[in-house]
């Protein structure tokens, strides 16, 4: 394609965004809903799991930490295939009929973000625990009291973990494509439609969605930056 073509595509993409094009808006909202829910559920699992790995004294702790670290970069298509097998009609969870629904995408993204958030949480909490352990032990904190107190104490640093999870979930394409099926008006999210529209040659829509995706991620990071700065000033 000529440069002029790309320029025109960009112009059309911008006018789509500025006109609050319905299609763009719906797709963006679905992305945000699916990834937001996956991260919200994932953080309830990942953050405490990471803290337990930091504080706990049990066999296999090192192994689990290594696994969590390794799974941070799990290829999303592999997660997609595994969740597909679980949810497909003949799979163990097939009776729920979740395949090709937004719920399936949420499940796949939870699997994707939990190890990432757990690994970051473990690192953050372990650093704090190294400083606090003796004092907590002197106060006779139980294991679970330590975990809860540390999670609360590290809440602003753990923001980074949540954000990393959200970034990962919103930008992955492999898992949602496989378990969601990229069905129009049902499971079509930003990344899958960008892939589809590009291959169809509808560049303006692909570019518009790409710009919205980038803007959303930048916005979230900016927000986190502001919150963290505020917290750092507050608690020096």
């Amino acid at each position, binding site marked *: 394609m000529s440069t002029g073509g790309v320029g025109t595509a960009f112009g059309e993409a911008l006018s789509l965004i500025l006109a609050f094009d319905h299609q763009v808006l719906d797709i963006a909202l679905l992305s945000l809903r699916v990834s937001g829910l996956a991260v919200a559920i994932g953080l309830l699992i990942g953050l405490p799991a990471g803290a337990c790995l930091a504080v706990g004294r049990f066999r296999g702790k090192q192994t689990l930490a290594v696994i969590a670290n390794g799974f941070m970069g799990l290829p999303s298509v592999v997660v997609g295939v595994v969740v597909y097998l679980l949810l497909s009609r003949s799979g163990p969870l097939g009776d729920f009929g979740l395949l090709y629904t937004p719920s399936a995408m949420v499940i796949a993204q939870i699997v994707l973000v939990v190890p990432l958030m757990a690994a970051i949480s473990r690192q953050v909490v372990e650093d704090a625990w190294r400083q*606090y352990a003796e*004092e907590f032990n*002197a*106060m006779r*904190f139980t294991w679970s009291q330590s975990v809860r*107190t540390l999670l609360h104490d590290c809440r602003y640093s753990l923001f980074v973990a949540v954000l990393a999870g959200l970034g990962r979930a919103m930008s992955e394409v492999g898992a949602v494509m496989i378990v969601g099926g990229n069905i129009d008006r049902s499971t079509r999210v930003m990344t899958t439609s960008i892939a589809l529209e590009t291959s169809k040659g509808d560049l303006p829509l692909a570019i518009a969605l790409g710009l919205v995706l980038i803007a959303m991620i930048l916005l979230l990071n900016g927000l986190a930056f502001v919150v963290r700065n505020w917290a750092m000033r*507050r608690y020096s």
Partner: protein
Amino acid sequence: MPMFPVSASRLRFEPNGHAVLRGLDLVLGGEGISVVLGPNGAGKSVLLRILCGLLEPSAGTLRWGDYDHCPEGVAMVFQQPIMLRASVLENAALGLIPLGVARRERQASAWAMLERVGLADRARDSARQLSGGERQRLALARAWLTRPRLLLLDEPTASLDPSGAEMVERIIREVRTEGCKIVMTTHNLGQATRLADDVVFMASGCVREHVPVSEFFRRPASEEARLFIQGELPWQMAF
């Protein structure tokens, strides 16, 4: 079950073969303030940690009254108390979490305690913004709030100015009058004379003397103690 006297006999602490305590004998009654004195590296902080159950002795016996493991009712304030990234009030209430006190009651008791240590007006501030003296008072409040029977203080006034130290001493006296046994270390001999009922003098990982405070300063039994009081103990003798 009584947790006094706390008695240590032939206590040794030798992490990785490096002898820190070398057969320490000590009996502490349940009242008053015992001040542990001794040169740097004598093993004072290690002794307090062992009394708090944070370190395991390598050999010897240690009993807290009828208990052979550290019972409830022992609290410790470290030389550099850690503060959570939270308000002064929440930090003061921290010690009540393990006692299963509900959040509301924790905060109410913490308020009352902050009044007593003169930090009530700072309750909503971040604990990490406190000065050294205020931190130390907060740490004392935090420990005191748990109503310990034995309170261990590791150099509670190190690096405080005279008025800060004086405030901490006032709190220590108040805790004592409530019937809590206090064992503390200090390098401030004036403070030892002001606060101590009895002095435990340590050197080279042993207790060399354990006598009433007036006796210690008037008639130190050992040559080491005499030199220590005069500030002339050569450092080699600490080991």
